[in-house]
């Protein structure tokens, strides 16, 4: 950390890198959804033409959905895609609205941290109990662990967007 008050904090300096990471993670989540669609399509055609569906495709879909959604959440946050009621605050000055948004971003960061904490303990327990899916016996803990990491990314993305609002009000 430098003494220069305009560049205090490594988080602020890491901002472009976090932004890029969030963007790529979102695209990755989208690609995962596309992959899921392909898998299911192949399974449907296999079932229809040769009575040979891909066994347990729904287990991949379940896991894939959770992973994809956690990939999306940080991107939605930095794109300010989360819906809120803004019709009753139009009278506030720009700065006031930015500070309100920053406050809720901090609350969201707290919730994300709680989620990351919960998911990491959940992953540990699933690792210990060697919990698997019903049909394919896929281990569940890696998926939960990845979600925990992505929840941590959500925490950082909420912090970054809060910092941005405080620094240069939109």
């Amino acid at each position, binding site marked *: 950390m430098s003494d220069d008050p305009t560049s205090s904090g490594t988080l602020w300096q890491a901002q472009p890198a976090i932004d890029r990471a969030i963007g790529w993670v*979102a*695209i990755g989540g989208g690609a995962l959804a596309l992959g899921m669609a392909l898998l299911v399509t192949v399974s449907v055609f296999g079932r229809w033409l040769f009575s040979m569906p891909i066994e347990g495709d*729904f287990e991949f879909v379940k896991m894939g959905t959770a992973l994809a959604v956690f990939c999306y959440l940080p*991107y939605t946050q930095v794109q300010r895609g989360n819906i809120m009621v803004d019709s009753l605050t139009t009278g506030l000055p720009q700065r006031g609205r930015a500070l309100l948004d920053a406050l809720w971003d901090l*609350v969201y960061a707290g919730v994300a941290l709680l989620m990351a904490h919960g998911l990491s303990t959940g992953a540990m327990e699933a690792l210990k109990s060697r919990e698997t899916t019903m049909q394919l016996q896929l281990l569940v803990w890696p998926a939960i662990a990845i979600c925990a990491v992505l929840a941590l990314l959500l925490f950082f993305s909420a912090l970054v967007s809060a910092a941005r609002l405080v620094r240069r009000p939109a």
Partner: protein
Amino acid sequence: MTSLQIAILGFSMLGLMVLRKPIGLSMLVVGGIGYSMLNGVGPFLAYMKTNTYHQFANYTLSVIPLFILMGALAERAGIARALFKAAERGFGQTRGGLAMAVIGACMAFGAICGSSVATTATFGRAALPELRRYRYDGGFATGTIAVGGTLGILIPPSVILVVYAITTEQNIAKLFQAALIPGLLAAFFYCIVIAIVVRRNPDLAPAAPAQEELPPASKPGWMRGLAILLLAGTTALWFADRIELTLLVLGGLLALVMAFADLAILPALAIALIVVGGIYGGVFTPTEGAAVGTIAMLAAGLIQRSLSLADIREALRQTAVTSGMIFIILLGAEVFGAFLALSRLPTVAAEWVGGLGYSPYLVVIAMLAFYILLGAVMDELAMILLTLPVFFPVVQGLDFGMFPDDVAIWFGILVLIVVGIGLTAPPIGLNVFVIHQIAKDVPLFATYRGVLPFLLADVIRLALVVAFPGLALWLVRVLS
């Protein structure tokens, strides 16, 4: 404090939403605090441990990102333009025909897109320039597109219906079936509104394009022959008991499209028929339908060279933002719903309303009126997720002389119609804002004035479906 008092306190804490607190976050925080107050912090932390994962690792929920991805790809694949050109040929000569063409094309697009915002944005780009070129009144044009956009959700597939189905544990396929006739009715009513409005004020739609100005159809001569062959083939197979009735209907519809529509819209209509028809006929689950539709849309776009790599990347990004927005609200609604269930407020409310002795229809009408008011200031998706945990048990507790499942489906369609109204009605109609972003030169007020006559038609349609539940339930019965 009793659990009911805590629940009421929770609802008032949701009031922080007026201070720009994101809706999903509000429900998460209030739900979390309420849960901890009723059951203790320890159980809540245990609940959070894997619930966020298991909540999302849900086969039914996977239809949401898939349908959004399918719509995002369709938005970029030039499907809307082709549909509009085809509809323009059909309606172009009548007065106000271009506006009717917007409604017709939106209806077809609604069968491959489950989001009204995406439909509005797509047609704002694909059709608005054409309407302006023929000197259509600005507010009439934008109003028509904003209203046409609601067909994105009114015609199945529909993200709103999926969310309703998941929250109330109803069958998505049945809700999609029930939505079809009211959805087609909406498009029909909108065309009537256009005809009346234009007759009363011809200045709104001054010029009809001359025949030679209309884009030519791209349809080779052998297409009709192929259509007849397809129809004959499927009928023969059905008589021989080799295929089911649904496949015959699908084949017949496809033949109809091939005979009368042009080649450019064939991929769009084929995808719509496969996805919606396949889900209706029980050929596949909604998730499978969405997956097949997504891949078919991607393939059609790549083959027609209308989807570039940049388009696909943009579609993935858009899917991320929209799905992320929906899922955080879904998570919030789940936690909030768990808290409400603990507080027993929904059960108490259901018993209380049931004990008042009002006519069940009056209760439903009051709820719909409340939705229209709330929808004026709040996002519609969040509105239904917030209220359904209380409203749905109340509705299920009332006696309409119908099976509870039928009531659930019927109420879902009513909610869908009200959501459509909320998307276009002042002061906050999301579709109106979307079209305003695209056509900044048309004042918001003018668009709202353009929307107004359509809203009247919406209210009439709502009243019809309230009075005649069969409009929604008939097709469900026929198909089951």
